[in-house]
């Protein structure tokens, strides 16, 4: 079998996820020597238009052009990987439709907006099927490297499903909820290795929610920290509004 043809593409986002791949400094060249990086417009001039064996896609669908591109990339890719929280869950920009002033804001700022050709910001899987997700804002380098290695070995990469609290317990971190901080650890996926709480900062949820989250219990916890109503909503939906909504509805 030849080397897999891999593409790294982006739609509307911050380029941080792509950079995270290029910043896997120690094993980057080694990793890249095992694949055929046929398209990576951020760092190379000559890029194949497809087909691809694997496409890593960064960014959220936020414009009409993005929408066309995700459909096209889906057709051209055997495996489509949502890289990062924009691509997996829509990220911060997708909270706009939950903003209480969403209708009033535009009028105050832009004289005309039709040329922006916007669509409601969303995750990629709102529009096309996604095979794998590597969320995180940004995703973890090691997780990306492991994912690529798994694919090369023909293993099915496994999704992580333990909360941030689980990792904090393993690391014997001081529980930030216990010291009065507003931590989302109980309801958020801990694939990051509980990075923020390990640095004395509350988890704010950038890795996205746990599938089996106990929403009701967390709401009570937050309330006991003085966080409720609009503030609670703002905090919990920050990175993955649609996903949270979907999971809470299911409960």
């Amino acid at each position: 079998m030849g080397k897999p043809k891999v593409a790294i593409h982006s739609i509307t986002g911050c380029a941080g996820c792509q950079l995270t791949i290029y910043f896997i400094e120690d094993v980057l060249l080694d990793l890249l020597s095992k694949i055929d990086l046929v398209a990576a417009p951020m760092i190379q001039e000559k890029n194949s238009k497809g087909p691809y064996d694997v496409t890593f896609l960064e960014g959220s669908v936020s414009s009409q052009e993005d929408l066309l591109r995700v459909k096209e990339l889906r057709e051209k890719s055997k495996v489509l990987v949502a890289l990062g929280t924009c691509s997996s869950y829509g990220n911060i920009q997708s909270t706009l439709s939950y903003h209480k002033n969403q209708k009033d804001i535009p009028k105050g700022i832009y004289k005309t907006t039709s040329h922006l050709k916007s669509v409601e910001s969303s995750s990629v899987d709102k529009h096309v099927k996604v095979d794998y997700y590597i969320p995180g804002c940004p995703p973890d380098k090691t997780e990306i490297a492991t994912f690529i290695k798994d694919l090369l070995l023909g293993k099915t990469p496994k999704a992580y499903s333990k909360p941030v609290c689980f990792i904090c317990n393993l690391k014997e971190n001081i529980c930030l909820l216990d010291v009065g901080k507003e931590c989302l650890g109980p309801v958020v996926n801990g694939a990051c290795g509980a990075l923020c709480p390990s640095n004395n900062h509350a988890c704010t949820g950038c890795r996205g929610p746990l599938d089996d989250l106990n929403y009701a219990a967390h709401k009570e916890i937050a309330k006991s920290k003085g966080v409720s109503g609009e503030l609670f909503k703002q905090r919990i939906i920050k990175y993955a509004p649609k996903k949270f909504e979907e999971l809470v509805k299911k409960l």
Partner: protein
Amino acid sequence: MGQKIKLNHICKVEGHANLELEIEGSRVKKCNLEAVEGSRFFEGLIIGRKYDDISEMVSRICGICSVGHTVVSLKATENAFGVKVTRQTEVLRELMTIGERIRSHATHLYFLCLPDYAGYSSALDMAPKYKKEIGRALEIVKVGNKLVRVIGGREMHPFTSIVGGFTKSINQEEKEDLIKSLKTILPEATKTFDLFSKLKYPSLNRDREHMSLKQIDEFPLLSGIIVSDKGFNTSPNTYASFIKENFDLYSTSKFALKDNKEFVVGALSRLNNNYKLLEGSADRLLKKSGVKIPNNNPFINIVAQAVELVHWVEQGIVLLEKTEFFEEAPVNFKPKKSRGVATIEVPRGLLYHYYEYDKSGHITKANIITPTVQNLKSMESDIRILVSQILNKKKEDIILDVEKLIRAYDPCFSCSTHFLRVKWKKT
């Protein structure tokens, strides 16, 4: 599809851009640089949010300069609430910013610029033949990243710095390790300057206004007044009186003008306005190289970045060595109805954040002006001039030169200038 929300957006440049050129005879009839990045409306998204959400959210505007957005945001909020942070907090933020400057410049120099001059599609393609250079680039990037990670908690979107201070400091072991790492790459940074100061750059001289911060006794980073080489000088607080943002219907990016005229920000502007404040190796190397500063050629921005790379690696060492770090709690403060502005130098130039808060500490208004927005009109003018100078060249060569020029500015849509689509119309 919900198309109900249209408002000002901020991350309009980094990512995807097109260029539309129309040439009529020997005249460039049309030159439109079109940002086609989708709109994320950050300035609107943060309205109604509490002060402790803001730096985290705006950091997501840009991965490449997420430290910059985080730090300027915290400073704007602190200025609004009248918070005076400790010297240690200032130093940690400076170091984090230096880390970002190092990795951003090294990435731009080696990964985005060098392949053009070496005749390759990418730095990765260069790796087999130029193993030393690409290895050097990765080493420098790694140390820059490490500085951001050790202080900021992670390399992208750092989170340990909050309004009033940090959630954690660094310990003696980390400090010594960072000094050692920076010392390891100092010779590599010097070699980088040697390499980039000797490349042959196209010539494109024209009169222009270079804007940057200026401090009395140090090369500027996170504070200072705003100056230009045309004698302009003012406090960042007055930014709204001279910088105006506007937009073209062909682009999702806004552009900024100063008193209705275009201007330039970035490494070359900083160097032109502050070269006398360089110290140590950077100063020596620049003088020895024969590179003329001040300089009006936008391609020399690449050399200016290499100068800054050496300067900041060395200053990072100095700053770490002279500081004793210890754990301290963020300073106490009370939110109040207020407004605050902050301006800092990020890799690509001046970055402004302006916020208005209500009495409970929720944002009621925000304005963010990024460097690429400030450079956009100057880029278009330069492209026009460059193209008119090289009309007799082959189409592919004209395109390559234009791409080189755009990359020399290091716009935040560097990513997309690498698949710049030139709509070619020649009559």
